[in-house]
């Protein structure tokens, strides 16, 4: 059972300042251009922490950067040796992470620990504290209710905050969250009955405020039962312009590719970069053969991975319903359009 506390909003900045003394603080920030991005906060006064808009990106790039140097290597005719890259991972507190994005981190935890734990991911993940924010008011393209990854979560967070106007309800989840409450206990007050009622009310209201009706369950069932007609794949794939934006923006897309860049004849640098299953080079083998050689197949791979293969593998879809891929696609190919088509709606 999670513990519940109250944090008055008046004291939020003060608490964040205390956290900043020990952690690098990352929070959604509205910049002068009006864009809201997860950014490192240098000063609480100067940063405009924005909890009212959906952050445009998730916290994926902080745990799994778009381009990461794995190590520099050097070799000679007689021996092969390399220098491990040892980055200084910085303890980081992520504040204002939404339920969908937190669910995505939980998914990445699973993916990066299959078979062998990925050291590059976990050196950052292990140093992270996640203070999530339950969603009282879903954004325009959100459908986490349908993917069961929000708007409120029961577990996975270190702390979960619920906005109750002048105060936050604070729930402890994992041990690191409990520690924070213990260390800074003078910030937290006990919960009264009206607080619990207010939180329940907020939860009920949030559930009724979704603007998108997305039949994720129905689509999953249909995908498990029968193949989707080729025309649907074709109509979607004709519009795909290969930008990779859906995969890059997606908080659960974790495919990467490895590249060696030579710095001299006998030395180089190995990097890994985000990849996308919609790219034709994703499946092309050395020698040029490509087992998946049509755009239809790559679109299929993307949606089936999210809604079929991961259901088979992990018992749940890997779409967290954040809606970020909706409206950004150059050709209007997004997961909501696909689910609607798969369920026979237009």
């Amino acid at each position, binding site marked *: 059972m999670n513990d519940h506390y109250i944090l008055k909003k008046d004291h939020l900045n003060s608490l964040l300042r205390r956290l900043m003394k020990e952690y690098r603080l990352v929070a959604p920030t509205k910049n002068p251009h009006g864009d809201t991005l997860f950014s490192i906060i240098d000063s609480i006064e100067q940063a405009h922490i924005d909890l009212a808009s959906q952050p445009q990106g998730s916290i994926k790039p902080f745990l799994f950067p778009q381009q990461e140097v794995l190590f520099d290597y050097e070799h000679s005719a007689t021996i092969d040796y390399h220098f491990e890259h040892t980055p200084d991972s910085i303890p980081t507190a992520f504040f204002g992470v939404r339920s969908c994005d937190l669910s995505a981190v939980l998914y990445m935890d699973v993916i990066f620990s299959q078979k062998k734990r990925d050291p590059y991911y976990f050196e950052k993940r292990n140093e992270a504290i996640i203070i999530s924010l339950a969603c009282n008011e879903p954004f325009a393209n959100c459908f986490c209710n349908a993917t069961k990854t929000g708007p409120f979560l029961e577990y996975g967070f270190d702390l979960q905050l619920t906005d109750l106007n002048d105060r936050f309800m604070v729930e402890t989840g994992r041990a690191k969250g409990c520690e924070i409450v213990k260390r800074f206990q003078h910030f937290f007050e006990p919960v009264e009955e009206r607080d619990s009622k207010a939180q329940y009310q907020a939860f009920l209201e949030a559930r009724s405020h979704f603007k998108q009706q997305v039949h994720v369950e129905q689509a999953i069932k249909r995908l498990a039962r029968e193949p989707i007609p080729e025309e649907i794949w074709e109509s979607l794939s004709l519009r795909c312009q290969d930008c990779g934006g859906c995969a890059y923006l997606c908080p659960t897309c974790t495919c990467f590719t490895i590249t060696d860049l030579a710095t001299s004849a006998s030395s180089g640098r190995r990097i890994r970069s985000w990849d996308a299953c919609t790219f*034709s080079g994703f499946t092309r083998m050395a020698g040029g053969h490509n087992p998946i050689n049509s755009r239809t197949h790559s679109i299929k791979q993307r949606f089936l991975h999210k809604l079929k293969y991961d259901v088979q593998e992990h018992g749940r879809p890997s779409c967290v319903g954040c809606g970020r891929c909706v409206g950004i696609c*150059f050709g*209007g190919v997004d997961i909501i359009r696909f689910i609607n088509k798969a369920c026979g709606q237009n």
Partner: protein
Amino acid sequence: MTNSINEIAQAQVILVSGSNTTEAHPQVARRMFDAIDRGAKLIVIDPRRTRLAEHAHIHLAIRPGSDIPLLNAMMRIILDENLADDLFIEMRTENYHALRDMLYQLDLDETAEITGVPLAKISAAAQLYARAQKAVVCYCLGVTQHICGTNNVQSIANLAMLTGHVEKEFTGVDPLRGQNNVQGACDMGALPGHFPSYQPVNTAEYRTKFEQAWGTELSGTPGLSLMEMTHSGPQGAIRGMLIMGENPMLSDPNLKKVEATLKNLDLLVVSDIFLTETAALADVVFPAASFAEKTGTFTNSERRVQMVRQVIPPLGSCRSDGEIIMALSQVMGYDMRYESMAEVMEEIALLAPIYGGMFHDRIEGCWGLQWPCWNRDHAGTSFLHKYYFTRGRGHFVPATHEAAAELPDADFPFILNTGRVYHQYHTGTMTRQSSSLNREASEALLEVNPQDAARLGLRTGDWVELSSRRGSATVKAHITEQVAKGSVYTSFHFPAVAINLLTSDARDPKAQCPEYKVSAVRLEKINP
């Protein structure tokens, strides 16, 4: 562009000519798809069946180089169907009678024959375009890279004026600019005949203005164009060249001539971020800072002047091109010190009227400003030619068909068309060093129609010796319906297949734009 990119999403009919929009201008294509989802109709004029053409309601797959006959046929049909905008023609244009006389002399069947498109299809497109309330024409290098490029553009302007499809929001003629700052480079007077803001060098009034501002005497004789310089030959008038961020050894037509010119210069100075094919020939190479290492502005296709912001200091001992020029000028005894690029922009605002209101502090605080922007209080201009054309009345210039400089014959039976692919950019100096992009497209492919391929015994992946009268290259074949029978297509990004060894250096006499879209070539399968 006379319109803004976002206006395209609101158009009712979009006519795209000679533009592989989904690959070369993805954000523009995105607006076209938005428009289609709102019910707009799309007409695509392209010899190739591009991705966009697959979405077209009407695809006019013309023979390469037959743009003028097609547009003339469309205009004639518009006249015959009584769809011309007479009021607009009367109020806003001149020389209409010349166009009308030319069109009435046209034999429609004969004209359609030249284009290779059935007359009924041309008629449907003409009527669709003419009947629309809001119609946009987007065109790109498929229109301009012909010996008759200027006339092609003029014919598009004729069509737009004939139907009154200019001077309104969501309506107009939009050339898509191929490079990030090609608009700005022209605006800034990196042109042989013009000072910044298109003020001719041979007009005494303008020259005096710049002489006073710069404190030195200036030449009033227009200079040489790019190809006149790079093709001047080993004994040409040009003895020394300074090249900043360009790679003519891959981008210019008929590369043998370029190589002969550059190799025989007394001095070649190149400033670039990588050792390009051109820099490798240089006597001096300056290491330039990339866009992430400097401050300045770019002007996009819709004339929007936007900030480029420095993110990191220049790598190693790199310097920005701006700093290099200032330093060089200083050594040569001409004082060209500026505190910052913002100060340079202040001088531009002073001397270039269309940039009159452009200042870094203003551009910094918004999403850029679209020129013309006359002064600090001016909000910029989202679409051009509102109420009046820049030159007064729109002038009709009738144009007639002009065959490409080099047509296929028995020795060279195929038409070679060249262009870009989505994952690469121009000579690939940046994109070929980008591992993700290079993985997607790391070599040139020669697109060949299946019928031709069958005749030549070619399969995808086979090597082909591709030759023209000027040179040859070895390239991998890719069999696809995208190209019409008798035509082949490839890109110019890769030094391994320097396709511009083959291309024709025939060029439009006015715009000096080379005919990259039509060269006669021969294909021979290479047996491994």
